[in-house]
């Protein structure tokens, strides 16, 4: 049994010229895992952290106790969910295109992950705060963030609520419960814990939701967030979006020998669950449970959303350099839009025709908004952002040295 110490270098199941291979991914069975009590303890959460909570079977039928938990969701709520996802997809399509045309400097899609943010957001209340990454635009969509504001920021024009100060895709809307996204990975996670502590200290009834990617769980702030959430027990839902990739780096680099990210959180004494993130019903059910748990004073909870990043990392990335082109299609848990559609059709509340019609309507809505917003300027046709804005908002009051610099600029 003796061997020489040798390093391991985690590898993805397949590289570009290989056949996609998810045979090691154990997806379990829909309906197999129960609903724990709201005051679940970390030590009792092992089956939830190591298993995979699923609701829909392949025919779109919801099964098991998690399905029962959201049996009260009527078809119109689910149709709204489908529309949210389709809207996100339409925006992704149009804006990637706009980026290709040089109208914006940068874009970033969330294809394949739409169910997570869309379903989660619809369980939140006004006053709750998300601490998202750049890939949770869905939270804004499902919070009914105005299209003009979203696209305006992508074009950095007069519609941009941030006045061109921040990168496209790094949105911010306090009113919509969407914390200002940082370019530095991980930092928001411990801030979410601090915000939730303020929720508890002020007793304002709100909760916080932290968001992080699988790759960024490696960051220090992931650790400090889990640690402080475990210590102080604030009302925070700590979401981990495991989409298998971090740019070109396979998720195994961040998970190492851990079974799941949920089990890593469990090691911190935080109850954790692992959920099929491509199953809108599973996301809705677990979000409902988790948000209720946090709000009713049972402390933090961690959720690993298991999904797949179907698109490139961003408009600067070409994944054909590091993974098989058809890997997304091989993902064993399918596509979130297809699956919710199947469910609604199974339920007799939707049809292929209505679906296509809705897609067309939504694309038209997005396209119209886009035209309107583009008229205010794009990267090829810049609107007039005032240079003096550079000095505004560095501090609440402009100090002398910034005033001098603004004068030096000649404005």
């Amino acid at each position, binding site marked *: 049994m003796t061997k020489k110490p040798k390093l391991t270098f985690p590898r993805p199941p397949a590289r570009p010229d290989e056949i996609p291979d998810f045979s090691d991914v154990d997806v379990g069975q829909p309906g197999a895992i129960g609903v724990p009590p709201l005051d679940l303890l970390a030590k009792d959460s092992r089956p939830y952290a190591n298993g995979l909570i699923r609701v829909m079977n392949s025919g779109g039928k919801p099964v098991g106790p998690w399905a029962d938990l959201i049996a009260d969701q009527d078809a119109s709520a689910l149709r709204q969910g489908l529309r949210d996802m389709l809207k996100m997809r339409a925006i992704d399509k149009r804006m990637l295109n706009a980026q290709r045309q040089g109208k914006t400097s940068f874009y970033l899609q969330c294809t394949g992950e739409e169910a997570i943010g869309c379903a989660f957001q619809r369980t939140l209340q006004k006053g709750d705060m998300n601490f998202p990454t750049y890939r949770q635009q869905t939270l804004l969509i499902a919070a009914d963030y105005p299209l003009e504001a979203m696209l305006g920021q992508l074009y950095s024009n007069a519609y941009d609520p941030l006045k061109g100060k921040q990168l496209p895709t790094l949105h*911010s809307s306090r009113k919509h419960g969407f914390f*200002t996204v940082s370019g*530095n990975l991980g930092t928001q996670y411990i*801030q979410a814990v601090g915000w939730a502590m303020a929720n508890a*200290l*002020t007793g304002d009834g709100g909760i916080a939701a932290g968001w992080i990617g699988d790759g960024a769980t490696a960051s220090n702030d992931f650790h400090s967030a889990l640690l402080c959430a475990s210590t102080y027990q604030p009302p925070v839902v700590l979401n981990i979006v495991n989409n298998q990739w971090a740019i070109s780096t396979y998720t195994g680099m961040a998970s190492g020998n851990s079974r799941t990210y949920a089990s890593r959180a469990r090691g911190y004494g935080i109850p954790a669950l692992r959920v099929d993130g491509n199953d809108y019903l599973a996301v809705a059910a677990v979000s409902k449970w988790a948000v209720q748990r946090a709000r009713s004073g049972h402390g933090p909870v961690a959720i690993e959303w298991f999904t797949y990043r179907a698109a490139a990392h961003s408009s600067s990335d070409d994944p054909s350099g590091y993974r098989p082109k058809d890997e997304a299609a091989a993902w064993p848990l399918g596509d979130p839009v297809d699956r919710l559609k199947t469910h609604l059709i199974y339920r007799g509340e939707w049809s292929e025709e209505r679906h296509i019609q809705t897609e067309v309507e939504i694309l038209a809505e997005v396209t119209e908004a886009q035209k309107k917003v583009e008229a205010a300027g794009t990267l090829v046709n810049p609107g007039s952002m005032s240079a003096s804005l550079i000095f505004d908002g560095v501090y609440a009051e402009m*100090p002398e040295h910034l005033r001098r610099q603004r004068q030096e600029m000649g404005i």
Partner: protein
Amino acid sequence: MPQMTMIEALRDAMDVKLSDDPAVVVFGEDVGYFGGVFRCTAGLQAKHGETRVFDTPINESAIAGMAIGMATHGMRPCVEMQFADYVFPAYDQLTQEAARMRFRSNGQFTCPMVVRMPTGGGIFGGQTHSQSPEAIFTHVSGLKTVIPSTPFDAKGLLIAAIEDPDPVIFLEPKRLYNGPFYGEHGGESVGWASHSAGEVPEGNYSIPIGKADVRREGRDLTILAYGTMVYVAEAAVKEAGIDAEIIDLRSLVPLDLETIRASVENTGRCVVVHEATRTSGFGAELIAEVQEACFWHLKSPIARVAGWDAPYPHAAEWDYFPGPKRVAQALSKAMEN
């Protein structure tokens, strides 16, 4: 008027604000039950309760990150880093997050928080209990950096910092906690009890951030100093017998350039003193600004006296510390031309 040490004055500032404003919370390592390794928060938890004053795990970026979450929510955290030497793990959160919130969210999220930390050497603390990291903060737009040199200023500036709408780095010269220090290791130690700046009014008062204090008027030369070095400068002026004006900056960013300019235009000579390592220290910034603002008035090169460009060496601390002798030499040299 009550007489206080700097520690008591800082504690009093937090006490006043904890009493005034329910949004204020105080936390850090050993800060709660025990009251801090330098005792700055002693008694505050007992008085204000565990939800207002509490201990944290040993993770400085977590302390900063939690404070940011609370500050953006609307609270006013005032946190302690046990030593300035341990603030570095929090550098990312402080400079990329706290400092940037207001700007990057176009004012939707703001970050009124104070980060207190004992700074400077002279206590045989070796390289990890002696550093003066002000310059790595003054380089960062969106942060204010403050450093008091008296109990009176300490209280007034700390209250101003807690009330400030933006994040403030609050450096506490630990060598001044219990009394002024004139830079002579072997010298007699004097307490604040017998110093006029140890008189500290009760209740709420504040000192505006960004205003320097002329500590000594003089016609021959201007000394720019802050923290412990203000006293070292006083000792050096005596030693050199030069009629120097001593300006205690109190706030590094924003900087009170007007007071500095007025003085240097008058004296025509300037010596800059700090304890931090010389290269890229805040003294460089001072020299750059002064030579630009007062070039035509300068009679001799602006000199700087600073910590050597080496780690703080435990046993050779007093050869490292820029004491009154080195400062006096620089003063005399500046007078040569």
